């Protein structure tokens, strides 16, 4: 058994508190740094427990368990990768807010959301936009308050493949932890002390549903189809279905809506920067 930190690592995300037990000090420091932007002031709410155990068989296998499931890994920084996954899944499915799968960035008064399933290049595109000066809000979830649909930032750490990391010039811009074969990092801009968008209650201004294509571009999309995509991608809508469905309806009525053709992520980011900033 390895040395473990005696004091649990506390992370707050989306109004949930987590206590991570059993991490090595160096891994715990990485997790703490990566999740620092979503940390909230301490209070007396009960914490959700996440346990890290390292196999004593010598193969460096790691198992992470929490109420969101079980994650395993092996190799360097495996605990960091698995804890990162555990924190993320538990946060987006357990949050009291309305959360759905989307990339989100902002620039000045424009808040852009890209709802869609995994594998559509959202994370790489979000990082390419941040590299152009957009503010990072999340590569994972659009999180909305139930009362007015305003956006709650969720700047979780991004995980990019080596190819995507190179494509967005990650090496020159951000510090990463290589874990599980991916670069784990916070794509905050050079002047971003916090990833929160400006303004206390930002709303979604532009809503683009991404679709892979040879070249970047925009196509018309019915608002009701954008609404359907948001519903399909939701993590927590089922808890307050009628209220949430109506709230997402308000979002698509207010926002500029379209289908985004995602080609090369850097070219697509430049295209979006040109159109919306």
């Amino acid at each position, binding site marked *: 058994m390895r040395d473990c930190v005696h004091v649990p690592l506390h992370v707050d995300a989306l109004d949930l508190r987590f206590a991570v037990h059993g991490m090595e000090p160096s891994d715990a420091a990485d997790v703490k740094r990566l999740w620092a932007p979503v940390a909230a002031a301490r209070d007396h709410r009960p914490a959700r427990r996440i346990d890290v155990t390292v196999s004593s068989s010598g193969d460096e296998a790691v198992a992470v368990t929490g109420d969101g499931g079980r994650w395993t890994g092996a190799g360097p920084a495996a605990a960091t990768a698995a804890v990162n996954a555990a924190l993320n899944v538990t946060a987006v499915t357990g949050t009291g807010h309305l959360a759905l799968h989307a990339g989100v960035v902002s620039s000045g008064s424009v808040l852009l959301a890209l709802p869609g399933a995994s594998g559509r290049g959202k994370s790489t595109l979000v990082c390419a936009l941040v590299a152009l000066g957009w503010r990072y809000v999340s590569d994972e979830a659009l999180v909305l308050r139930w009362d007015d649909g305003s956006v709650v930032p969720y700047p979780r750490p991004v995980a990019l493949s080596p190819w995507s990391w190179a494509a967005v010039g990650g090496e020159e811009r951000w510090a990463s932890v290589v874990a599980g074969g991916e670069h784990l990092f916070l794509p905050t801009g050079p002047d971003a002390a916090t990833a929160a968008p400006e303004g206390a209650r930002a709303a979604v201004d532009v809503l683009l549903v991404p679709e892979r294509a040879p070249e970047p571009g925009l196509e018309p999309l*019915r*608002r009701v*189809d954008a*609404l*359907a995509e948001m*519903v399909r991608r939701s993590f927590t809508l089922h808890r307050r279905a009628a209220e949430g*469905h109506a709230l997402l*309806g308000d979002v698509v009525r207010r926002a500029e809506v379209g289908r985004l053709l995602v080609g090369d992520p850097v070219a697509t980011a430049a295209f979006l920067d040109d159109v919306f900033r």
Partner: protein
Amino acid sequence: MDIDGSACIGPPADDVTVVEVEGCASLYSPVTANVVTLNETATQIWSRCDGTRTLGEIVDDLAAAYGVGPDTIAAEVTNVVTGLVEQRLLQHPAAP
């Protein structure tokens, strides 16, 4: 699936929530995680599936609203209603 001509169509299934945007309805069932979007015509059909009209009455009502003969739209109305019932978005038609 054949719909009994004397049965009233609807109402919507209990769990289904509806949001209308620009004349098109979005239907969502948190129980089945099913989300369906309707075009404007299908939305007009949906709005009449409230459990008080038979299929023939819905056809007649829509035909009058659009100024066409019932035969022109009967097949489309039947298809839309059948699809909504099969997806459990409407309660199964019950004989009066």
